[in-house]
């Protein structure tokens, strides 16, 4: 058992905070986008689908640069956010959360969409014919049946956020205590001559965190599978 240094504790705490914020921000939009893709036909759906999935394929640095251009203090969105709300995203942990949210978004949408597509529509129709409102059907039938997929999406987004590097360092930079997450701290130490020992420790911490997250997600999906049967977990 080794004790964390101040730098390691700071980077770990920050990574967890960014990842939690990333999941919180992504979830409502992810649900909405997944529902649109799974249940609705509309003009431009293919383009919408492609746009949502773009961060999976784009180099993370390209995403970070796009965020820098749009959400920087001098960017069209960033300037507006600052003037109206006094909100700065660039070089802040909130910006790091935004960067990882954009990168994690397609993973979450894919997983929720798959779960929604696997929900048996006849059960929903039956509930409707028995007089349940659309909202009641969504809350008592669709969402519970899709829950394993939604949780898988959340775990994937959380994990993606913990590992996010390229978009984050491009948009949020490397600021100790603010945006220097585990991967960025690790990168910094790898770059610095004499940083090997510290880099090795951060690598081990990252490994432990990754394994813990995977084991946890496996336990959750097993428990859900036991409760819901084969409810469509991705």
């Amino acid at each position, binding site marked *: 058992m080794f004790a964390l240094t101040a730098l390691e504790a700071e980077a770990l705490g920050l990574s967890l905070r960014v990842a939690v914020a990333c999941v919180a921000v992504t979830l409502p939009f992810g649900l909405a986008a997944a529902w649109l893709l799974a249940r609705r036909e509309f003009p431009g759906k293919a383009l919408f689908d492609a746009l949502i999935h773009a961060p999976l394929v784009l180099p993370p640095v390209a995403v970070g640069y796009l965020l820098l251009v749009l959400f920087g203090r001098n960017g069209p969105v960033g300037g507006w956010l600052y003037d109206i709300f006094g909100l700065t995203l660039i*070089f802040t942990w909130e910006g790091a959360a935004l960067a990882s949210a954009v990168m994690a978004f397609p993973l979450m949408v894919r997983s929720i969409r798959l779960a929604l597509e696997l929900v048996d529509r006849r059960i929903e129709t039956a509930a409707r014919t028995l007089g349940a409102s659309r909202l009641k059907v969504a809350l008592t039938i669709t969402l519970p049946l899709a829950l394993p997929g939604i949780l898988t999406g959340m775990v994937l987004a959380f994990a993606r956020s913990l590992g996010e590097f390229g978009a984050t360092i491009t948009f949020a*930079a490397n600021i*100790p205590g603010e945006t220097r997450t585990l991967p960025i701290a690790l990168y910094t130490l790898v*770059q610095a001559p004499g940083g090997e020992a510290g880099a090795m420790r951060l690598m081990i911490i990252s490994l432990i965190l990754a394994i813990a997250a995977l084991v946890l997600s496996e336990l959750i999906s097993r428990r859900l599978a036991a409760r819901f049967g084969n409810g469509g977990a991705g």
Partner: protein
Amino acid sequence: MVVAAPAGWAAEPVVVFAAASMTDAVSALTHQYNESHDAVVVASYAASSTLARQIEAGAPAQIYISANARWVDYLGGRGVIERRCDLVGNRLMLIAPAGRPLDLDIAVGFDLAAALGDRRLAMGDPNHVPVGLYARQALKTLDVWPSVRDRLVHSADVRATLALVARGEVAAGIVYATDARLSDQVRVVGVFPAASHDAIVYPAARIIGPGNAAADHFFAYLVSNQGRAVFAAFGFDTDITAPCSP
């Protein structure tokens, strides 16, 4: 059109690892050399510390140009340096975006923190990137470091700092004099007093190992007056008299 070199050394490229601040000068120099010598010299640019780590890990570089002596000493201590020559010098500057210039006199206790407002100061990572090491030293000498150390954006190299200032995303940045003159989107606020930090000297080193005549020849050209003239054209200080060693 590729023509075989008489000496047969054009087949194996000579690989130069150079500090990010040398990007334009070394590109010009290698271009000029390749044209006139029918040689293939290729260069890779990054923070000197990053390059030192790569060379230590066995990167196939035959020549290394660092923005400080420290990382050449570091490699020297690991027994990979065959010969080193101080190549050129530089100065440290405070710059601001052209659209948001700062009016400050760089002196002991100057109020940099107030001038930053609610924005940040960009500089190379002060833990290893040479320009960041010089900048931290200068700010400490001037008693300004404690008030700005929590306001920094650590850049991976000096050119990343320059880009952040040029984009206007930070209030100010610390770069070399040779970088400041490359962008018309930045304005020089002032030059740090030479006495506020170690002299900025770029040693060029010949790495032991992948040795060949082409690398030796380019190294000699690099440290010759002809080579230094190229650096002078990019604003580097070529008034360096220290001899090569060994």
